[in-house]
């Protein structure tokens, strides 16, 4: 099943309510919120870092902040923007720390991940994964936040704490590079970027 990327009003209201309960110390609400976000954050972060242990660390660091700071959330942005903004900062720190470590192949931990039958288009996804690795981390994050998690330009700017035009510029460069690296994306094209 394809995960819904557009956060509907009802979903946002539900998550707001959960955060309000978390602010009051409600563990059940916290666990529900964790389950709501774990899958997409795990996929986003594992794709970014190639290490599930790092992704798990970032998710838990993020939700540790959510638990402690839920009372500070004033609803000025969508809950997903707030939570992913925390995750973004944690991921950047983890990414920098990880870049200094010797390479360890911990991409998949068999006790927490189970393989399923590959879906159609798996080959393209693998190639896209490799192409994304060739992008600078900020561009890669912008691509994932836009295409994978379906955030608007303004939401991505809030998550990455940068101007809207910076988001557009990062995606512009990322798109140009992906076109060169992925013939599937460039094949039907006859035109060029402005």
């Amino acid at each position, binding site marked *: *099943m*394809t*995960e819904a*990327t*557009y956060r509907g009003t009802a979903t946002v209201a539900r998550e707001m309510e959960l955060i*309000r309960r978390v*602010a*009051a*110390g409600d*563990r059940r609400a916290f*666990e529900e919120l*964790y*389950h709501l976000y*774990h*899958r997409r954050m*795990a*996929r986003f972060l*594992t794709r970014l870092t190639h290490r*599930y242990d790092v992704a*798990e660390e970032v*998710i*838990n660091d993020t*939700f*540790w902040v959510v*638990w402690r700071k839920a*009372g500070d959330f004033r609803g000025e942005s969508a809950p997903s923007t707030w939570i992913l903004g925390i995750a973004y900062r944690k991921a950047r720190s983890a990414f920098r720390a990880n870049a200094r470590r010797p390479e360890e192949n911990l991409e*998949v931990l068999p006790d*927490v*991940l*189970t*393989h*399923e039958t*590959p*879906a159609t*288009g*798996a080959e*393209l*996804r693998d190639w*896209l994964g490799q192409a994304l690795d060739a992008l600078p981390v900020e561009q890669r994050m912008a*691509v*994932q936040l*836009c*295409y*994978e998690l*379906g955030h*608007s*330009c303004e*939401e991505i700017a809030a998550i990455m704490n940068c101007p809207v035009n910076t988001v*557009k510029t990062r*995606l*512009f460069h990322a*798109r140009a590079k992906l076109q060169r690296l992925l013939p*599937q*994306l*460039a094949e*039907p*094209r*006859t*035109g060029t970027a*402005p």
Partner: protein
Amino acid sequence: MRAPLGHEESWLQLPWLANGRLSGELRAEVEAHVHGCSDCALELEAQRTLCRTLQSPDTVTYAPAPSLRKLLQRLDAEPAPRRETLRRREVRRAWRPPGLAWAATFVLTVGLGLLVAGTYHWSQPLYVTATRPAAAPTVLHVAFERSLPVGEVGEVLQRAGARVVEGEGGSDVFGVVPADTGAAPAGRAQLRALAARLRRDPRVRWIEPLASDAQPEP
């Protein structure tokens, strides 16, 4: 009226047209441009392919339970964060002035302090008293009834135990001291006692108050 969206801006907006997050007027403008621009139409297809590929189902299933267990253990091991109700927090925020207000309060306080100090300074007299405080009295000045004969004056003084050391000099005021002091100057206590004795006699019209009564005994 706004100019139609250019090719460059439309191109930049295509990722959000592809992921469905472009809304309202901007969406209509980008779609209108894409309709008449083959380059943008092709790019939009590529963008949609990107969305489909990155949103396609995972080949792995992420199990959140072990991670959540670790996190809950971590939360249990740490002191609970201080919880505040929304209402209390709003009240606290309402009474907490922002940074600029703090600065203004500080400036106002300092200004008021200087004003009070300046007012006190200017309220003080601009002159300095150069005279020294009066020395302790050695003589008690008294006045008797005008019609009192000299003999009776002598009798009043004798009864009170006083002797005249300064004449009346036309002013009806005599300077008297206790009779037993001799040449030594009379003490304040002696003068006070003498004044008390003289006040008991109705023929004494006036006794000069002892100005140094409030001062401590030497």
